[in-house]
């Protein structure tokens, strides 16, 4: 199963590592990526209880530099980029004029008028083109995706796994902050971010440095039970946290207010693309809300399944899985605003059968430390 399916698919610098580790390779957003190694549930539990290593080099990176960078990003993004301090990262959304999402992304402030932006793999080219169309000529805008290997070290032993490889003072890097430091002697951006709900880091290192850092991290974490983890576990981990994923909870036709991302939409800041549409949605009240559903009966909700209330269609599942941590079916779903209160019982239609679900508080899983 490790042979390439097509020559057009891209490979990260860690492809040979994945093959060597018996990773099951699948096509994801045009990349040959490992979906699992030892098993999805095992990898999921490893991240929840110990520490896991993810190759996320397929993610895109864009560097925005030069005079007007801050103004440009604040025009393009819904969150207030002016609030970010040097060394801080910020979750953000990029919208179309109609309030629909181009992508969600993380902005890192590297210096004055100097930003490093991490975007979704499947959207890298679309995002870069969108940015390019709106960028003033004075600006340096670079798609630097091919220059970086990105590795996520996630779990309660993440810091002690990474510490031996770097001089950075990891303890001083708070959640959603980063340091420009080095890993095994080469420059690295070390950010305390992640997509799992656990403590951990996402590190950006030179592309060719990937295999050495990956191997050394696996050795460093061996005593703590570290395992390489695939995209399968990454998806169940983020679903348990109700973290949005482009193509599921957010899309061109879905706006951040309904997606529960109102906390990164700053309508009071200077004007930005989509502000008018989002303001109107805010004023009239969003029609739908994104909720967390937990199965009350046997069955696993999946993306695309309908949500019903007394036989009437009232929503749609955007992500669903058997939760490896809770051992019950869980779903993220859009439902009518009036039916979005915690405790509401709704049906998810699974193969023509109505299966009772309850709206619960999210995240579904909270870490115990």
């Amino acid at each position, binding site marked *: *199963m490790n*042979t390439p399916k097509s020559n057009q698919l891209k490979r990260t610098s860690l492809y040979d590592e994945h093959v060597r580790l018996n990773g099951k390779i699948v096509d994801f957003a045009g990349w040959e990526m490992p*979906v*699992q190694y030892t*098993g*999805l*549930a095992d990898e999921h539990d490893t991240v929840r209880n110990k520490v896991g290593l993810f190759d996320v080099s397929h993610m895109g990176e864009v560097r925005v530099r030069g005079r007007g960078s801050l103004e440009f990003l604040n025009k393009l993004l819904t969150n207030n980029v002016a609030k970010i301090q040097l060394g801080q990262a910020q979750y953000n959304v990029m919208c179309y004029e109609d309030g629909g999402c181009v992508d969600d992304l993380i902005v890192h402030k590297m210096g004055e008028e100097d930003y490093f932006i991490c975007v979704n793999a499947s959207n890298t080219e679309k995002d870069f083109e969108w940015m390019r169309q709106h960028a003033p000529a004075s600006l340096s805008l670079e798609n630097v995706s091919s220059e970086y290997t990105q590795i996520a070290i996630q779990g309660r032993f993440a810091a002690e796994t990474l510490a031996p490889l770097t001089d950075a003072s990891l303890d001083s890097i708070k959640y959603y902050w980063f340091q420009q430091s080095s890993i095994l002697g080469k420059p690295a951006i070390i950010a305390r971010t992640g997509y799992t709900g656990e403590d951990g880091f996402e590190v950006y290192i030179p592309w060719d440095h990937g295999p050495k850092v990956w191997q050394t991290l696996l050795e460093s974490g061996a005593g703590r039970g570290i395992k390489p983890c695939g995209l*399968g576990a990454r*998806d*169940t981990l983020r679903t348990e946290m109700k973290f949005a994923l482009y193509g599921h909870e957010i899309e061109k036709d879905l706006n951040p207010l309904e997606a529960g991302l109102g906390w990164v939409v700053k309508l009071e800041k200077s004007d930005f693309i989509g502000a008018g549409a989002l303001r109107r949605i805010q004023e009239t009240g969003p029609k739908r809300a994104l909720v967390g559903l937990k199965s009350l009966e*046997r*069955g*696993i909700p*999946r993306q695309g399944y309908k949500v019903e209330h007394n036989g009437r269609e009232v929503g749609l599942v955007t992500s669903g*899985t*058997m939760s*490896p941590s809770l051992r019950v079916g869980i779903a993220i779903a859009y439902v009518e605003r009036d039916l979005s209160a915690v405790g509401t019982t709704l049906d998810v239609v699974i*193969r023509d059968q109505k299966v009772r679900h309850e709206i619960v508080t999210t995240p579904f899983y909270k870490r115990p430390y």
Partner: protein
Amino acid sequence: MEFPSGLYYTKDHEWAKWDEKTGTVTVGITDHAQDSLGDIVYLELPQKGRSLKTHETFGVVESIKAVSDLYSPVSGEVVETNAKAAEDPSVLNRAAYTDGWLMRLKVADSAALSGLMSSKDYEIYVASLK
């Protein structure tokens, strides 16, 4: 990857085992199927007494990440299903060809199995998918 001889196989990655004495066929999913699916967490099996045609959907198997229909390898009447497997579907990952069986079908005669693949043919078929 295991391909036990003496069983018959389908392109849908189900196996069938003929039992001369009872005139029944036991059905399950193959090692390749369980390996492709990953951690199996949900199983839906047919009612006893249901009569199935060859290639008819008789149930569903779900792993954490995927949903897959189950197709009957032969025509027949469901005389027994594996309640233990429905309760703990992970047995399909551990013992796809033994404790992880899914159902037994009463069939008219063993001729129904003649259209299926031998273990050798199935092994070649699986290799061709890679």
